[in-house]
């Protein structure tokens, strides 16, 4: 019951903030905040595998791409389809879904693919798993470039209806955080963390490591797919390059710098990344040193790995705030 109240309160405060932003922020700033929300969905859902379960996946962007293309095809105006996709397969010619349903179908397709490739890939460990998921990402990229009847190859799909707004993004971010939190803060999550800390010990306690890894992988993929759909209907133009290694690395950097063992860390990483990017881009442009931003981010990543390997937020934000408040009370009393 207390949880329900807290969730409701957080949601209300969040909605109030969004209302303020929606009515007062400039178009550009609103766009940044929207992008930040999509990054946050990606990092929080990636944290479920890379942070809470011992599955270091590099394939998240592949799932995002699946969601983005699926949702875009489903909402694409029917009358424009024959001229825009002349070779579209028969089934897709008339398949239309309203935007919210298209997002969910995109997510479900990503989750279904995660389920299928999870069987072979999740039996691998550590490095090998990282490479195999990177392989998945590369295969998706390669298919996007080459399945021209459906994806239009390198041209990409433009003219996607602009349905995504700040409310949709933050509604889904809220859902992502809520679902992740409910999973992590349950029997299920304890089992996942046990697998992360010592998979052999976890197994000996009767935890089915494979099943927990698969569940984390599939749920993470679902939200990545939804994030892809949101992204496509925000930018209105998608092409394979948007889902390349660059985005993969950026999401990994956000997650690790923010702190991949906490949910707050994951979204904090996305916030920091977007803010730093905005601060540093003008510096890069005025000095002409293109690549400076990436240079700084990568140096940050290495420094974090060496000095603070659990990221900036090692503890959940609410727990930290509570402790800080308690410490304040203590000092007042003395």
């Amino acid at each position, binding site marked *: 019951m207390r949880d329900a109240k807290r969730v409701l309160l957080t949601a209300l405060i969040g909605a109030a903030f969004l209302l303020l932003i929606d009515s007062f922020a400039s178009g550009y700033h609103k766009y940044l905040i929207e992008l930040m929300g999509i990054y946050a969905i990606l990092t929080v859902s990636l944290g479920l595998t890379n942070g809470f379960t011992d599955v*270091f996946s590099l394939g998240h962007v592949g799932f995002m791409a699946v969601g983005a293309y699926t949702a875009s095809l489903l909402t694409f105006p029917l009358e424009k389809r024959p001229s825009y996709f002349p070779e579209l397969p028969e089934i897709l010619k008339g398949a239309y879904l309203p935007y919210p349903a298209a997002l969910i179908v995109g997510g479900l397709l990503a989750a279904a693919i995660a389920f299928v490739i999870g069987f*072979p*890939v999740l*039996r*691998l*460990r*550590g*490095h*090998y798993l*990282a*490479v*195999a998921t*990177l*392989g*998945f990402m*590369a*295969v998706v*990229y*390669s*298919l996007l*470039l*080459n399945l021209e009847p459906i994806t239009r*190859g390198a041209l990409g799909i433009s003219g996607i209806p602009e349905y995504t707004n700040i409310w949709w993004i933050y509604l889904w971010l809220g859902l992502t955080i809520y679902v992740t939190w409910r999973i992590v803060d349950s029997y299920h999550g304890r089992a996942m963390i046990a697998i992360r800390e010592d998979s*052999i010990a976890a197994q000996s306690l009767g935890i089915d490591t494979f099943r927990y890894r698969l569940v984390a992988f599939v749920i993470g993929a679902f939200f990545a797919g939804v994030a892809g759909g949101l992204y496509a209907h925000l930018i209105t133009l998608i092409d394979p390059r948007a889902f390349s*290694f660059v985005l993969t*690395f950026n999401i*990994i*950097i956000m997650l*690790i710098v923010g702190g991949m063992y906490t949910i707050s860390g994951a979204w904090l990483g996305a916030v920091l990344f977007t803010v730093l990017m905005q601060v540093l881009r003008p510096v890069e442009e005025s000095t002409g*040193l*293109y*690549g*400076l931003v*990436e*240079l700084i*981010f*990568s*140096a940050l*990543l*290495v420094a974090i*790995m*060496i000095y603070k*390997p659990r990221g900036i937020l090692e503890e959940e934000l609410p727990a930290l705030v509570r402790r800080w408040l308690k410490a304040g009370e203590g000092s007042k009393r003395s």
Partner: protein
Amino acid sequence: MVSATYILDLFIGSFVLGSMYALLAIGMSIIYGILRLINFAHGAMLMVGAYFYIMFLTMGLDPITSLPLSMALGAVLGVAIDFFAYRPLRGGPELSMLITSLGVYIFLENLVRIIATPQPRVFPLPEFLKGVYRYGDFSVRVIEIFTIASTLVLFAALVLFFTKTKVGIAMRATADDLEASVLMGIDANRIIMIAFALASMVAALTGFLWGGMYGQVDPTTGFMPGVKAFIAAVVGGIGSLTGSVLGGYILGYAEIYSVGLLPPEYSGLRDGISFLILIIILLIRPYGLFGREVERV
């Protein structure tokens, strides 16, 4: 129309590409063997090596001195990277080094982008490697022969190094069991330094060959070869020298023949095909063709 010369052309092309993958895979394999680190940054060492070579040329040196100098400088850089980025992480979780190496890759790529601009640079090939031999329809470039020959010579030299010299044997011992080798009086840090120097030197040489083959380099040049070499090493059995070389050739052949023999509309799938091979191999033999299964407890 598939003619005999076309097949032969593909054969040489695959041999050359496979050789370059093999050279990079050897470096990755050496480092993995000792540190259990999949060094993503290794691809960047190829690109940096090529830029070093161009740098020495523009300083007015001749090609014969520039190549060894660029290899030496590559070795120094490799050792420096290990010292600053990987050494502080030793003994930590396996994945933290993998993540760090991703960071090091991005760092190197963008450092070069800032210093040398993102524009591709023409890679000047020395005169004696520029020629082409022709036999009727069939032709082969001198740089292609040079690439294949230097790979085979280097492979033979490395096999001798690892079986006959004291340092080489010490390196294998360290790869086998780091703790036991330290107890036997092997200086692990020195061995790791040598491994990075050796691997980076070979990567710099590969950079020279790569630049020579394709005529230009840019800061992103190293990425795909790095990833492919990594696949080659895993397919062959990472940690095994013979496996890495074989993996390199398997990948080179698979890539060139799939592009050369499939209808042109599928040629864009070449990168996907490499990864498909990787996934299949990992499923059948999770430790690669020549790898040994090591159970971590």
